[in-house]
């Protein structure tokens, strides 16, 4: 038995034998790796060793949480539901499909002014944009302006691939179900003057830069957009063809930013999508001063049939994006829990350390 401990002595005392490598034995190499003696950190999970971790987590998370919470609370956000399912709602009249186009106006008041850039969103609820078949129902090469895909869209687009023997551009269920309400915002400047001041809404810059410039492209060609989309037809549900989405050539066709935003299918059934930007005009004037506003809605998009809801959201943003109280609360909660657990461990450690020590001694 003593023999097999020889090996280590040799290591400690210097390189093992076999001078000149003459002796070719089957003796395994005595390296730390092969002998599984790599230097290692061996943490042992006990109350005593782990409790610093808990305290550190607590100490880090709680300040972060407070920071996030404060930031989130500083974000101004107003949400106006205009689904119109309630009889009192001005948009209630639009639920029936008879009136087209149906325009309704909702009044709302901003208690505090919105500083900085304000984002205008539309929000949909109970809308399953993440449904498997729905998500698949698009043709990215068509959207990228591939001429062949334009005229012959992918099979994934079925049944919104062709209409009356003409390829649909853009094809697929996602495009077909594009949000098509028009929202306009007016400020009632002062009570005396009832003429509302329209708020300038910027239509560009709401989509990802890469989407607008790389992923989505209009079909190539020299002529007008209409010519470039020749031979295609509009999606069934659309009122006008894709090349007429905007008067601006740079924002029409597949590169219409509203369209691009819509094509980014939402992860969850309750979602919002960026609709317009309200840019800050100057440092001295709030972007949206406190006061009364009108929201003018051209009501086209039917959601009540599947119990969906539509909202308009105005929100400022911070470094961490839109208003989200959850993260802050989560950080604070987890931090506190961790701290508490740390205290529990401290108590346990204090109480049982002696006994465990004695146990070790008896070993």
């Amino acid at each position, binding site marked *: 038995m003593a023999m097999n401990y020889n090996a280590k002595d040799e290591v400690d005392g210097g390189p093992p034998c076999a001078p000149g490598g003459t002796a070719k034995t089957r003796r395994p190499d005595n390296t730390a790796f092969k002998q599984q003696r790599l230097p290692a950190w061996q943490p042992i999970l006990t109350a005593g060793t782990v409790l610093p971790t808990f305290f550190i987590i607590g100490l880090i998370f709680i300040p972060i949480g407070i920071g996030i919470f404060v930031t989130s609370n500083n974000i101004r956000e107003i949400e106006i539901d205009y689904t119109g399912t309630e009889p009192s709602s001005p948009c209630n009249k639009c639920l029936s499909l008879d009136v087209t186009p149906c325009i309704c106006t909702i009044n709302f008041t901003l208690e505090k002014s919105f500083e900085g850039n304000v984002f205008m969103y539309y929000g949909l609820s109970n809308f399953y944009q993440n449904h498997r078949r729905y998500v698949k129902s698009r043709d990215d090469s068509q959207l990228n302006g591939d001429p062949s895909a334009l005229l012959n869209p992918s099979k994934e687009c079925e049944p919104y691939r062709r209409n009356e023997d003409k390829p649909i551009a853009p094809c697929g269920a996602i495009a077909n179900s594009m949000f098509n309400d028009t929202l306009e915002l007016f400020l009632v400047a002062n009570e005396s003057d009832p003429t509302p001041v329209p708020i300038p809404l910027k239509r560009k810059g709401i989509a990802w830069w890469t989407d607008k410039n790389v992923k989505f492209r209009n079909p190539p060609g020299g002529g007008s957009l209409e010519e470039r989309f020749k031979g295609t037809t509009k999606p069934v549900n659309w009122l006008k063809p894709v090349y007429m989405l905007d008067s601006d050539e740079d924002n029409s066709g597949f590169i219409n930013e509203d369209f691009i935003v819509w094509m980014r299918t939402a992860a969850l059934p309750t979602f*919002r999508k960026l609709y317009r930007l309200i840019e800050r005009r100057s440092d001295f004037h709030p972007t949206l001063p406190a006061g009364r506003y009108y929201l003018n809605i051209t009501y086209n998009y039917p959601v009540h049939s599947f119990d969906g809801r539509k909202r308009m959201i105005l929100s400022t943003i911070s470094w961490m994006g839109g208003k989200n109280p959850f993260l802050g609360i989560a950080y604070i909660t987890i931090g506190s829990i961790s701290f508490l*657990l740390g205290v529990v461990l401290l108590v346990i450690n204090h109480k049982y350390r002696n006994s465990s020590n004695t146990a070790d001694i008896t070993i």
Partner: protein
Amino acid sequence: SGRGSRAGPRSYLGGRKPPRAHRRAGGDPGAGAPKGERLRMRGCALHLADNRLKTTKYTLLSFLPKNLFEQFHRLANVYFVFIALLNFVPAVNAFQPGLALAPVLFILAVTAIKDLWEDYSRHRSDHEINHLGCLVFSREEKKYVSRFWKEIHVGDFVHLRCNEIIPADILLLSSSDPDGLCHIETANLDGETNLKRRQVVRGFSELVSEFNPLMFTSVIECEKPNNDLTRFRGCIIHSNGEKAGLHKENLLLRGCTIRNTEAVVGIVIYAGHETKALLNNSGPRYKRSQLERQMNCDVLWCVLLLLCMSLFSAVGHGLWVWRYQEKKALFNVPESDGSSLSPATAAVYSFFTMIIVLQVLIPISLYVSIEIVKLCQVYFIHQDIDLYDEETDSQLQCRALNITEDLGQIQYIFSDKTGTLTENKMVFRRCTVSGIEYSHDANAQRLARYQEVDSEEEEVAPRVGTVSQRGSIGSHQSIRITHRSQSIKSHRRSSSRAEAKRASMLSKHTAFSSPMEKDITPDPKLLEKVSECDRRLAVARHQEQPLSYLSPELSDVFDFFIALTICNTVVVTSPDQPRQKVRVRFELKSPVKTIEDFLRRFTPSRLTSGSSNSSIGNLSTNKSSHKSGLGLLSNLSQENMFLKLEERLGPQASAIASNGYSSHTEDWAKECGAEDCTKEQGQHLEQELRYEAESPDEAALVYAARAYSCTLVDRLHDQVSVELPHLGRLTFELLHTLGFDSIRKRMSVVIRHPLTDEINVYTKGADSVVMDLLLPCSSDDARGKHQKKIRSKTQNYLNLYAVEGLRTLCIAKRVLSKEEYACWLQRHLEAESSVDNREELLFQSALRLETNLHLLGATGIEDRLQDGVPETIAKLRQAGLQIWVLTGDKQETAINIAYACKLLDHGEEVITLNAESQEACAALLDQCLHYVKSKAPHSTLENIENNVSVQFCPQNPPSTCSISNPSLSLVIDGRSLAYALEKSLEDKFLFLAKQCHSVLCCRSTPLQKSMVVKLVRSKLKAMTLAIGDGANDVSMIQVADVGVGISGQEGMQAVMASDFAVPRFRYLERLLIVHGHWCYSRLANMVLYFFYKNTMFVGLLFWFQFYCGFSASAMIDQWYLIFFNLLFSSLPQLVTGVLDKDVPAGMLLKEPQLYKSGQNMEEYQPRAFWLNMADAAFQSLVCFFIPYLAYYDSNVDVFTWGTPVTAIALFTFLLHLGIETKTWTWLNWLACGFSTLLFFSVALIYNTSCATCYPPSNPYWTMQMLLGDPVFYLICLIAPIAALLPRLFFKALQGSLFPTQLQLGRQLAKKLPDTLSTPKETFAQGQLSEQPRTEFSEGRIIGPSESISKDCATQTSQLTQQLTCSPEASGEPSTVDTNMPLKENTLLKGLGTQAPGCSRPGGAVMLECPRDSRREPTSACHTAPLSPLFSLPTCGSLNWISSLSLASGLGSVFQFSRSSLQMDKPDGEFLSSSSQPDQDLHGLQGQVTDYF
């Protein structure tokens, strides 16, 4: 040209005798063969295999289909392919079909590459073997030409030289040996290192000239190729119509090596895959480990879980569709034809899609990962330097790659004894001659010094390099020169034992002769006596009765050494000079062929040349004179006329043509003449001599005799030459050799003594047998009394030897008168010539001869325990392993060894089960159970206490703990075992065995060994390990869960069958306790982690279904989904699975009880599995809902949301693994870093690669956007921590409040880092201080022991009517024990008190009352042995009991057994015609009963 060179036509005649196919290899004088016949033969020859070895599984063409076919045998692969193919169904596809196929293909490819590589290495080794060269006779060139092995065909003539390996199964036709003998070493085949004798086929041995293949005209018929190494049958029909039988003695087996024979020629009988060696070679086995079985069970649970999830989703989707379909929801996509699916159909589709999406739950990479991890574990075990044996330059070999973790769960060890626990190296220790003991103290000191030197050397310096640099010759000689010196001082301290070991290792030719066996320091007293004998005899040589000049004692001494020297089958060789071919023609092949011849030869009573002038003269007497009876005849010249010497070789040999065995040294000796010169010469001679023995005992005895200057110098099959310093060379005519067999347990030689011209029988055998065959001595005259005294003294010494654990042999002698001999010879010749039951008759004949012996003395040989065996056993015991020793040895030896290696403890009670019938066995078992139960409450309580105790008691080994509660041990012999293994009794037996600390099964057959293992395995559902070294252990090794072979003395057979091969028994400790534990713990943790990982990942997807209408949508990109397991998260777990050490090796060795965690499967229990799954569910909830809430009602899209979820999952996995990892090496850090980096870089590259590809996720620029989003970082920070907080907390709590043994061990290891960093020193010192072997040899002090329960006794006495048993005179309350709880010393006692066989036909019950002598000190052995044998007349009347014989007490078991009765019958028949039937019958029964 290969075909043309074949020796001759072959035919493959089936049908003449249906059961056997005949292989005819005939020859005709070559070129002249009729064309038609040759053609026919050639056609037939195609059926016969050529000698090409092909072990590869595949060819280039067949690789792909065959390998795929084999891979699809694995159910998991079929499953994954099925899932992948499901993706091709458009209605249910979840991923791109091609992509889904990728992982399966990857796995299949990896496995295929592995298989290909293995097959290629097999091919390479095949190629190497196939291209070995050998000499084959070429018919065209009419000479032997060199050919590759693969070109050899059946029927070829092969010429082999010394030390060549035999390429095929060859029938020996010619040998350069004068007697037509050939020696082969079969170590490659069966591992036995001794030389085996093979004989030239009858009819060819008489050939005068060199064998000429062209002249070969015989036809050979033989049986079909089979794998029975021990049998070969066939016949050869010579051209003259003569028919001669072929036996295995004629067959040279492929793989063996020719030794000591210059050259042989043979004809190939079986070639290639038909050879016995290859037929015996069944490829590697696939064993499934227990953990893997359990894991498969859990995989099934996962499948169930998967189905449940899918079903749930399907129902959910059906409801969802039903709800939204009518509502014209914008997001509800109709079918391609515009119609909408019914909810039920949608549900069915959803079900299948869900199965695809959630397939990750059944981890495709699990099997591959496990294989990789096991491979690495095997690599590390292989590389462990502590498992490397310097002495034999061998490491541990892992032959089974997939059961490493089973090593950590072993509960039962079944061990062989000889060669496994012991070295199987016999060392002469002591002897007693004519009642006087020679203790050989100097020899003992020398042996002790060997150990000392050994350990000293280990402490001093590594010597490997220097030693091995020396050539083998140098070290050989240094040993040989020293060995003759008889003074103690010469025993070198300088040349260390390791060097000697190395030398012995290098001298591969010599079987069983370590320097320890060779160097024997003679006892000075005895040496003096021997030399006195020698001197006196030298003086009195020419007198009428030379031996009468010696006192009876000296005469005994002389005979004793003569017997040691010649009563064996040792082959004397000089390594470099094989016996050369001398063709001598004799009329008489055997020394005495007929009675007439015998009588004729022995009529002249006085020999002329027997005591001829000098030893040299005798030596130079050539072959013919030996053959014709040692020059007994005055008319010897007549026979010498036939002498024809044919010297083939060497000028110097031809110079002494008269010398039969030309050797340079003899030549020189002859010229020398003077006595001192002879002596010198003799020494020189001896230095060149080597002894090849069939068993190591024989060699040890011959070496011992040589130490007393009584040197065996030559052995031919009819004469033995012994060299003495003064007497010179004595040549004994060897009349008969009655070989050893296990029933007689002795061997005898019949010789004619050259000094007295008497016919002597020397017998050497087991003491129990020989002592009963002694000449009954009358107590009347002084001489008889003296003899009696000698015998009793000898018996006492024998007992003493047995106590010391020595193997004892008795040496006896019988002088035959010529009439007796003639009488015996007649019958013996009859027996020899008989055709039927020849062996039976020879057995009888031997029995007749070996009676009325005169006791010369006894020897004690030590079969040394291997280094570290007691320590290893103690450690393994501490580790909670039950050790059973299954041995074929006799009970006494086994028990002695068991005590020596601490398997049995003196504080323990030993239950001995020796039953002679089923009923007796049942009764005994019942009693023992009763007895055990009566003790049970106490012991179980104790056990519970031991188990519950959280603390270690390392300083108190179990032996001290068990002093208060003596644990039981069970000893059972083979017969009883056979009964106990019957269906009806096996449960009881097992129950009993389970209660016992250790179990010792003696006299068990290989089959029984495997049955025991099988029984324990199946009934106790225990993990078993079998360890053995010999062919007899193979079946046991194969049956056990883990088979371990010792790659030591006995070689390859056990190793070939084993899963692991270790060089020594002691390595088992590290293999099991360290590597077994590690492997198990690593793999268990890895498997659990795997399940956790997949469940957690799938959980994320499942929760998402609640928010996507159960549409089987996945927020995680399909690429991530498919490759996550395979690429991103696999490496860290592999590293942990390979390298993690939960407890350092030193601590594991120090606290073997930590091994119990593996036995109890603590790390991977169903509870652990489900807890793990619950934790996975919780973690997935956290990891899903934190991103969910963080991104609730935001403008995030599906895959931009899914990517952080994936990242969170990855971080959670890594952190989880971090909590589970016990040792963090830089490799772990590297792997974790690599995983993270890989994920992000792959994601970034993937997200940049293509703007429009990979529908539907189309992840262009997603990751880049995310990296600019602070929320991404925030959730990546909080989610993993929140998910793992509970786990960490509970781990910490558990670690503090309820730490497991393992955790304690780890803590302890951390606290005492210094002891662990240098564990070797402490261990080494510990062992050195213990000095196991010396302790063992000093004899043991037998302490007082527990009294024997009387319950059983009374029960038995009821059973067997009245038993009377007179208590021993010691006044002990000795009980009437028909039951077995005996203490070991009783059995030792019993061993000595061998009672003469008293058997009564008709089956009386013999009972021995074991004297309860346990209070007697060891020295009490001096008390006169008595035979406590009680026959019970009443028993005879009981019919049922008449066949039952109960006996107890070891070593004195006298039973009439069924088999002995069976033996009697043929004997009786035979003996009825003989003149002295009673005596023989009696003798036979004595033997037989003793045997059992």
